[in-house]
């Protein structure tokens, strides 16, 4: 009897202690083989699925998530958009050490907010190959913020993503090496031949004069785009008249998506997990890692309506059909008019590589400069005079064109006041987003994470950040652990977000209340930009020690090193007249490169040049270097070569050290000046990879040693090309170029 009594008492006590509901999930992270594109490739699946399982909690719950790492590498999970203790934030080397292979890690934190969020790995490039999933936090029904007709509508989590058959590490390396293989795959090389055909030869010329490579709205070629892990799927549980709330997260590593619905307008009701006043739109673009909640209606019976997600480059798309029955399609997004975009970019780009907004004060996605490339708005790619004959059809279409309502940030309004504490001290920060497309360096104030310390902030202050994007690409900037207000003209009702998409030349102001503790990441959420160093850390002064990070300083160094890795690039031309090749190892600032020319006979010679250089300045056009040259060549009759300056050199055996620099001239020609230890001087002009047509590249070189070279390369595959070149030393040759 006593025993039972005790049991009852303990039960009572324990229930009062645990009156909060603990919701537990067990996640097993495993290597797996998937087939999204027709080819079997490696991916990472959690509990055997991609995307990772949808985790659902209700505000007030305690989340307890057990992660079991069955991989051969470390992993982590970041809870995107959640307010939580710093040690649960899931950034390896910043808030915890990586979850080692074969170990279990428990994330446990109270759920103190509601809304649509998502979670993903924050380790290396694991997010690209499957580690993303929806995270739905429901409101309590008794919550005063519960909105009838919105929060009680049936809901479906939607997570967008993309798949590439290439290993993400390889994608990252190729981006740094300015490989244009992705452009070839997408059909966006924008070569001289294509420019000529489109009547934009001058545009292309100006573009190269301003030292720009072909522009694109996104960098990576993807094989498939996915909604909830499928390219096409159907939600047949819904019927005519039903309203459905789609809780959409963009779990893509680098893709923005346009969202459209075949059954009419969409009502946007929340963004980044925060409610907004409902607003009706025809379409919206969702930035990488943003979330939007939209409500759609099924207008007719026996029909399912296409919800179409198209990546910004419009190469492909993915659809989910909502409703039962025959599938009503929506008009696909037409192909971009790249040369129009190039022309616009030319106008906006200063000769010194900075951007000029021509006094337009752009902000909040209100002016989309890319509109010049959108045929659905600016008319088809045909010349204007051509469609004059079709006056009649044009008229009926034109009214719809300018009526397309596209969401932008100024249309978002919080239903409740979001003002910060009034008497708190204000901390002003300003960041300029900077980048270098040619070398794929992405930074803030031209500084990458490995070159900077943490930014200290104090608990209790209001942090106001002005962001200006002075780069050519848009960046979704994400702040961990906090929501910030976007000052968008809605006054006290400014919307709360945790990701801010900022387009080229835009200036936006955000502010947040510093109310936490620990170290919080602030970074561009395009995975490859983040890995290139476009990150900062906000660190609260006098933070509590983090039990998961015994050696904080050491760990921060590891974090810094992660986004400043060296990338290898190598190529060799196996030609009839010799071998020509080079290998380079580069990171954000440093370059170790060696070039070689190996003949098949002694009289053709063997030579190599090695340069160790450092890129200087924002645009990295200037690179001083030290060099080592080694040559062996047997010339007939003791012939002596003389350069343009009358300096003589015996080329037979030569080992030289040198000092010099390389500078990128307009038209992307590289000017190189080099002085050797014997006093000889060499000046050289060189340009490789002039895009003549989609796959044909030209190269030339000429220098003051009276050496010259012209060559052509036809690209047949990612790592292969057919070449021909004429070299003053080795004569005419044909060969095969193999590159890595």
């Amino acid at each position, binding site marked *: 009897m006593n025993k039972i009594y005790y049991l009852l008492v303990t039960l009572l006590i324990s229930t009062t202690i645990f009156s909060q509901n603990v919701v537990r999930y067990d996640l097993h992270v495993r290597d797996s083989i998937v087939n999204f594109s027709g080819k079997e490739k490696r991916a990472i699946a959690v509990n055997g699925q991609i995307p990772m399982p949808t985790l659902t909690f209700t505000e007030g719950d305690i989340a307890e998530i057990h992660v079991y790492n069955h991989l051969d590498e470390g992993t982590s999970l970041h809870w995107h958009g959640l307010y939580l203790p710093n040690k649960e934030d899931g950034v390896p080397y910043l808030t915890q050490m990586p979850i080692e292979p074969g170990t279990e890690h428990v994330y446990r934190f109270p759920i103190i907010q509601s809304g649509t969020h998502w979670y993903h790995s924050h380790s290396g490039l694991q997010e690209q190959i499957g580690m993303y999933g929806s995270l739905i936090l429901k409101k309590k029904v008794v919550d005063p913020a519960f909105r009838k007709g919105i929060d009680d509508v049936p809901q479906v989590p939607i997570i967008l993503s993309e798949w590439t058959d290439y290993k993400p590490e390889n994608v990252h390396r190729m981006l740094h090496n300015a490989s244009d293989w992705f452009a070839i795959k997408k059909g966006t090389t924008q070569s001289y031949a294509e420019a000529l055909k489109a009547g934009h030869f001058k545009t292309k010329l100006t573009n190269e004069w301003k030292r720009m490579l072909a522009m694109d709205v996104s960098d990576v070629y993807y094989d498939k785009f996915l909604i909830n892990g499928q390219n096409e799927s159907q939600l047949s549980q819904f019927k005519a008249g039903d309203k459905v709330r789609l809780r959409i997260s963009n779990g893509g590593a680098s893709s923005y998506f346009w969202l459209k619905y075949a059954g009419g307008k969409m009502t946007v009701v929340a963004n980044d997990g925060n409610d907004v006043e409902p607003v009706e739109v025809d379409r919206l673009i969702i930035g990488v890692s943003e979330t939007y909640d939209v409500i759609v209606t099924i207008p007719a019976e026996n029909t399912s309506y296409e919800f179409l997600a198209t990546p910004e480059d419009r190469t492909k798309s993915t659809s989910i059909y909502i409703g039962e029955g*025959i599938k009503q*399609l929506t*008009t696909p997004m037409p192909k971009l008019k790249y040369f129009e975009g190039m022309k616009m970019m030319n106008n906006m780009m200063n000769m010194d590589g900075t951007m000029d907004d021509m006094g337009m004060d752009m902000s909040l996605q209100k002016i*989309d400069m890319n*509109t010049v490339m959108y045929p659905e708005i*600016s008319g088809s790619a045909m010349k204007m005079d051509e469609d004059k004959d079709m006056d009649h059809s044009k008229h009926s279409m*034109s009214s719809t*064109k*300018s009526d397309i309502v596209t969401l932008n940030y100024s249309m978002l309004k919080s239903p409740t006041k979001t003002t910060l504490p009034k008497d708190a001290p204000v901390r002003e920060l300003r960041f300029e987003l900077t980048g270098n497309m040619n070398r794929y360096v992405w930074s803030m104030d031209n500084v990458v994470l490995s070159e900077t310390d943490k930014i200290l902030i104090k608990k209790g202050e209001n942090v106001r950040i002005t962001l200006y994007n002075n780069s050519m690409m848009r960046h979704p900037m994400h702040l961990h652990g906090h929501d910030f207000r976007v000052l968008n003209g809605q006054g006290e009702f400014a919307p709360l977000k945790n990701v801010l998409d900022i387009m080229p030349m835009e200036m936006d102001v955000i502010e947040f209340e510093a109310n936490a503790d620990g170290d919080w990441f602030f970074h561009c959420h395009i995975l490859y930009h983040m890995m290139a160093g476009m990150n900062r850390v906000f660190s609260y002064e006098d933070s509590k020690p983090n039990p998961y990070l015994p050696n904080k300083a050491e760990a921060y160094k590891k974090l810094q090193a992660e986004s400043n890795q060296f990338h290898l690039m190598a190529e060799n031309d196996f030609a009839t007249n010799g071998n020509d090749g080079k290998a380079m190892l580069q990171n954000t600032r440093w370059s170790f490169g060696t070039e070689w020319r190996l003949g098949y006979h002694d009289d053709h010679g063997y030579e190599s040049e090695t340069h160790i250089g450092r890129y200087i300045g924002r645009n990295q056009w200037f690179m001083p270097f030290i060099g080592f040259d080694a040559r062996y060549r047997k010339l007939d009759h003791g012939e002596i070569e003389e350069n343009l300056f009358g300096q003589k050199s015996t080329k037979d055996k030569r080992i030289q050290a040198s000092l010099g620099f390389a500078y990128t001239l307009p038209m992307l020609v590289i000017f190189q000046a080099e002085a050797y230890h014997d006093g000889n001087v060499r000046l050289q002009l060189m340009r490789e990879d002039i895009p003549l047509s989609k796959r044909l590249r030209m190269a030339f070189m000429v220098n003051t040693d009276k050496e010259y070279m012209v060559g052509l390369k036809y690209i047949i595959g990612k790592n292969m090309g057919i070449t021909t070149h004429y070299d003053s030393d080795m004569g005419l040759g044909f060969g095969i170029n193999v590159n890595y």
Partner: protein
Amino acid sequence: MKSIKNILMLTVMLVSFTSSYAQIKNASTQEVKIYGNCGMCEKTIEKSGNLKNISSVDWDKETKMATITFDKKATNKDDILKRIALSGYDSDFFLAPDAAYNKLPGCCQYEREAKTPVKKQMKANMEEKMKANHDEMKSTETQNISQLETIYENYFAVKDALVETDGKEASAKAKELLTLLDVVKMGDLEMDVHMVWMKVMKDLKEDATKISQSNDIKKQRDAFDTLSENIYKLIKVSKAETTVYFQHCPMANDGKGANWLSKENEVKNPYYGSKMLSCGKVVETIK
């Protein structure tokens, strides 16, 4: 002799290889209904369904039945029917987007049997909404009182036509503007307005004439630039009935920039039309 034999064999092999290559491998054939009318439809349907070595479509306009043959390892029926639907033709699996259907030539606009009409009640709701919008528009349209006010209204009509890149409409509206300009009773104008009127009247008429006499949108926009400047001068002193926004696009006029007036705060650019619709900003609000 032997070599000839070899060559012959090689040729035969090559020929058989190429002919087999041209066929669809792993072929699967199905019959599906695709809605359409005429021979022209047949062309479009087959063209949009065919993919070299992957799928071929043969549609019969009498029976509306299509025989589709495809490489089942490379594609599937849905892919083919989706392509056909995107070209404007319904099947029992996919409905064409309305825009694609509306773009079909008149003779091809078949009866859309497969499409279920939108529920009555919902349609009524939508129509009500549209009507409400319409009424709102009308009520703003009828607010014209003073004689300059009618001129401003007409200016805005010209602007709207340019926003829509509609040269004909712009010309027609400019013609109306011209007649209005001619009948302004200068004596009724207030003193300061009168002064400005005298200065800008000639230019206003000239620009209005230019716009009315041309259908060339580029010429119209050139004239509209100066027309806007002069209307701005006028509106500054006379004040309009409603708030007017003076807007600026730095890219217009070959990068020299150009201004215009609008009744809405939201930017709708008359110099680029839909090409760059939202380019520009409000530089002054005139109340």
